[in-house]
């Protein structure tokens, strides 16, 4: 991976790919990855977090809760390629969205939802029961308890988990293979129904089936490095936020 460092330059990061991807940069791929991450965030976070809250605070223990938990765990265990399959068949073909950012975002979002739900649930569960009882005893309603007491305490863990799920989403290749990724598209997308290039897919293509594999090898090293850096940045950000937020909560 050290070989990638020599390739990275300002031009590499900001230019369009040229000459059948043997020179130029990977700017569209970076933009595409970020757009996909943003899109899947919009899909997965609201529904995932709310379901998590609902599951841990409102639904009573019993058959329904067990059933839903089993189903979400199942969903989390499905290989990512199967999500790609579903995304292609349903979002791309059935709903006629075509290969587009929105189809890819929904597919990646579905992939992230089980992770988000589990993280939210676990973090809420780890909040001590005494906090809830104290809040109830002071006359707060259930909603007030959840929003003003339980959520702030669980926040550091939730945020960390969310960012980690984003780092997973940004590295996934299989689901975007058939829902969004473009092979060679040296321009930026105009609408959410456009195809984009994405870093993981770009790396896959130029390392296995590019027009000139030997000549684009250095591009592949560079792409791999950029991808790793993005993922690591997410992870470090998560670590830092966890420390920062938990300190803040404790001070309150």
């Amino acid at each position, binding site marked *: 991976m050290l070989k990638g460092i020599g390739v990275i330059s300002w031009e590499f990061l900001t230019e369009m790919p040229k000459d059948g991807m043997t020179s130029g940069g990977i700017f569209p791929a970076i933009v595409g990855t970020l757009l996909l991450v943003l899109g899947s965030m919009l899909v997965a976070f609201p529904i995932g977090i*709310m379901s998590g809250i609902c599951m841990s605070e409102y639904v009573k223990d019993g058959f329904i809760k067990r059933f839903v938990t089993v189903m979400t765990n199942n969903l989390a265990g499905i290989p*990512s390629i*199967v999500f*790609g399959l579903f995304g292609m*068949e349903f979002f791309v073909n059935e709903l006629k969205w075509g290969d587009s950012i929105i189809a890819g975002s929904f597919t990646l979002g579905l992939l992230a939802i089980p992770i988000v739900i589990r993280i939210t649930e676990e973090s809420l569960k780890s909040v001590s029961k005494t906090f809830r009882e104290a809040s109830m005893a002071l006359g707060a309603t*259930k909603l007030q308890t959840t929003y003003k007491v339980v959520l702030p305490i669980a926040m550091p863990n939730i945020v960390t988990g969310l960012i980690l799920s984003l780092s997973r989403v940004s590295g*996934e290749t299989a689901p975007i293979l058939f829902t969004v990724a473009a092979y060679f598209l040296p321009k930026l997308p105009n609408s959410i129904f456009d195809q984009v290039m994405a870093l993981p897919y770009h790396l896959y293509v130029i390392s296995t089936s590019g027009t000139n594999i030997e000549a684009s090898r250095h591009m592949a090293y560079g792409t791999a490095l950029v991808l790793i850096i993005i993922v690591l940045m997410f*992870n470090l950000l998560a670590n830092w936020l966890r420390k920062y937020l938990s300190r803040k909560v404790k001070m309150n």
Partner: protein
Amino acid sequence: MKTIFKKVISKFVEGLLMMSGTVTTLAVLFIVFYLFKESLGLFNMTPVEDSYSVLVNKNNPVKKLSAQQIKLVFDQEITNWKQLGGNDAEIELFRTEDISNYYSEDEIGKNFEHLAQRINEHIEKHRGIIAFVASEYEMKNAASVPLSVDKITLLELMKGKEWFPTAQPAAQFGVLPLLMGTLLVSLGAILLALPFGIAAAIYLAEIADTRFRNIAKPLIELLAGIPSVVFGFFGLVVIVPMVQQWFNLPVGETALAGSIVLGIMALPTIITVSEDALHNTPRSMKEASLALGANKWQTILRVVIPYSISGITTAVILGIGRAIGETMAVLMVTGNAAVIPHSILQPVRTIPATIAAELGEAPLEDYILKHCSF
């Protein structure tokens, strides 16, 4: 007034929460049912493509063949109708493009307007013929009758040794080679990753000093976050040439390379989870063992490991789960040949890699693979 407003808000938010919970559950159910429905559709399909049909002379007693028999016939491995339960006659193969060997261009017509008639004539003349033609050239109430082809059955799917979903005239759906490939690669990965993973976990939890542990553990967790496609690339440029050199192979893209890459990918999961399990052994148990005169090694082997064996098992299962479902890395390094592997030095193809590689070409067939993925 204010309390009513508050009540409405809280009811509304609660409703919203319940609704999102319901939506998620429904979405999960929908995905599962959708995929199952689509995959069950496979069993209603015939292996011969819709727009083509297989024709025989109407006096031929053979009316029904399985996909595999058709393939053998067209590969000229079965050459006599007797082998298929018919009369003793040679099997003559015929495809649409062969018509020019028998009829001149004028007879067929400039825009192939007489093609159907000619094919019909040809089939009438030759008793032992089997013809594979486009359905539009098939005539009704003619001397040729379409051969009915057996539908795909679950048993055939599981037993079939050949995987050619785009083969003509009859597609072959045997998932056995894919299944064997997946199992072989995953097994190899676990065999490679397990000893290293557990050894590293024991070292980190019991032997290494705290400072090293505090540095090493976050690093290993970061390793778990690296995208699979990067591992695949690493395998392609480092491990594949290495395997090729070690064993003097014509190609390095083998099951072994896939196993090594998957093993590396499964390592972080195995290490972190089993290290957590080992670390959670109560201090009093270790101290009791030491107080009884056991040395450190005996304590680890007889007390710590048995105590945390359930956690270690979880780690192994999680590792296997990641290895079996992994697509991209495997797709890039295993060579993708859908044959039953005889050794780990042959190219194989796994189920997820097949979905990825063939999704574009073969629309419905791959759904069945999902069952296996479960």
